[in-house]
């Protein structure tokens, strides 16, 4: 659907809040804590399709965009160019990071831009009077911006130094009906998840949301057997993006290697897997791959699309 930018405000030099309404003035589809929307960002040479968590929803959607140095391009462009009144194509909300409804306490851990889904959790947790505790980590320089975003109250704590967050102690003292949610850069998430697992937290109580797991890599060639097209996948783009830029419409949903929607059969070549969806044995046989995050070990792949 087409949205109109109703407001843009700077939270810091690198962080902006963008408010979106339906361009035709109609009511927006309902959002939910943890949901994200995809934005089709029209760059000078290509269109980026990026996912942004809804930090607020209702009569308007609010997202937060961060301008990061080695950004994939879309966020930087959006941060620099978004202007009130402009229209932009957005998807319906998708929720791959919902709160566990049967938990009695929710423990939130985030770093950097990973703050965004939890901003949407807090009003819902308060409305349903659920116990929660939120620890957000960021660099000292970013602290004023994130402090302004975090909600008032005793539940949310900002950490600018590693040593003020004693992760094992925090995890150890949670009662067993607590669920853990982690969102942030990959290394932060791996550390937190590993610490929880070491203390006996079961996988079903650990929830993670990764943002755009796609990183660049060596370029490779792909032949699409059914479409009868051959493409080059550049070092800065994912296989999925290369297919979209060629005018194709392959399936996708989370764009982070987690949901399985973009899985395509591999007819020739060896894929280089970066997803969290396929099993180890599926990775080994290499009969299919996730186009949104995975690349190639051989110079060329042939896919059944």
């Amino acid at each position, binding site marked *: 659907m087409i949205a109109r930018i109703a407001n843009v405000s700077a939270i810091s030099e690198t962080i902006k809040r963008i408010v979106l309404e339906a361009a035709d003035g109609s009511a927006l*589809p*309902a*959002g*939910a804590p*943890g*949901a994200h929307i995809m934005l089709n960002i029209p760059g000078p040479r290509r269109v980026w399709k990026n996912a942004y968590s809804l930090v607020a929803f209702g009569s308007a959607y609010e997202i937060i965009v961060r301008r990061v140095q080695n950004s994939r391009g879309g966020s930087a462009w959006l941060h620099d160019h978004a202007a009130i009144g402009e229209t932009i194509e957005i998807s*319906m*909300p*998708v*929720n791959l990071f*919902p709160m*566990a*409804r*049967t938990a009695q306490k929710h423990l939130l851990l985030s770093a950097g831009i990973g703050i965004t889904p939890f901003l949407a959790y807090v009003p819902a947790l308060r409305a349903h009077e659920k116990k929660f505790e939120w620890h957000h980590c960021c660099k000292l320089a970013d602290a004023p911006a994130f402090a302004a975003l975090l909600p008032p109250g005793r539940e949310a704590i900002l950490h600018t130094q590693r040593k003020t967050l004693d992760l094992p102690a925090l995890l150890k003292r949670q009662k067993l009906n607590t669920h853990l949610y982690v969102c942030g850069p990959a290394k932060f998430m791996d550390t937190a998840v590993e610490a929880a697992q070491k203390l006996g937290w079961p996988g*079903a109580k650990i929830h993670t949301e990764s943002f755009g797991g796609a990183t660049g890599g060596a370029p490779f060639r792909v032949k699409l057997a059914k479409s009868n097209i051959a493409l080059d996948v550049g070092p800065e783009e994912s296989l999925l993006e290369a297919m979209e830029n060629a005018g194709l419409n392959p399936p996708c*949903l989370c764009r982070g290697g987690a*949901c*399985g*929607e973009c899985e395509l059969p591999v007819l020739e070549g060896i894929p280089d897997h970066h997803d969290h969806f396929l099993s180890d044995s599926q990775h080994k046989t290499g009969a299919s791959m996730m186009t949104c995050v995975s690349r190639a070990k051989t110079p060329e792949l042939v896919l059944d699309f």
Partner: protein
Amino acid sequence: MNLIVKPPETFRGDFSMRNSEAAILRFPFPFHEDSYMYAVNMEPHVSGGPTAAYDAVFDLDEHYLGDMQDRALVLEEDPARCQVLPHMMDAEWDTLELLMENIARDYPEHFSLTRDGDNWHWVNRPMQIDDTFTFGRAETLPYPPFEYITRQVQGDFTIQDQRDNNLFMDGGMVTSQADWSLNFDLGMAFHEWHGPVPVAHEIGVFDRALKYLLRLQYGKPVRRLNWTLTVNPRLDTSPENYPLWGPDKASVTPANVGEKMCLRVELQTLTRLPRSNAILFGIRGYLIRLEELARVKKWAKRLHRVIRDMHPEIAEYKGMVRYRQMIVDYLAPFDDGAVLNPGTAPEQSSL
């Protein structure tokens, strides 16, 4: 949509229910070929299909008042036919919003919904309901939200919570079921509540269906058909009341099979709900007597072949062992053996 609501007929006791010619022609006949096997067979739930039953998002028909009256009777006798587990309140409101919006849009001459922020005004003219309430505050409605709206829409509904890479049936309004118990199945996971279905597990139907449904997207509902046979147009064929309808099965004779034997088709819809991230499963049931169905030439021939050649385990699971041959014998004279077109459309516009 053009909807003419009849005065209520009965789906129990004297079974006064009859399908008008229009109702016969819009029936969602389920067999697109001359034999039947399980398949995932989900397709996008878009407006339009082989008959008019596919036009509305949630289809209502001439039997609206009769259906809703029967539902109210079932609930009076057994309140456990409508239950929602406590953590599913968001899904209740999602369901109320979804059904009200679509019914009001598809049948504006009978229903209206006006919203002013959280202050909602709902009018259901056929059932003479006129209520104002606050969206999100259950105490402002005469029933909990899910029960409130499903008492006004034809078909059974279940709400399925998505967690742990699985779906759990954590709520439902189930008064017109084909022999399964909500009180027993409430809380079950996907493979568990499908447990009793034979054959399908071996060919992986449910594994694929679950994977597909876990990725069901908001705004992209899907639908599929299911079918069985019922003696008399009885809506409540629950395990709970099996002692009441079980004896009917032994009462079928070659003389009455045309009138008593009904094809029962469920037009099932699956819709992602936004706030709860749950899935609403709609089971909209339609009943047609064999003698009514036989007036559509293509359907008489096709049904004859499907029943005649059915896989024995499926025939047994569908409960038709006692009268299968009687059905085949009744339909045989209608079947001239002609090659039929694929697809379920009646290929007749009058009877």
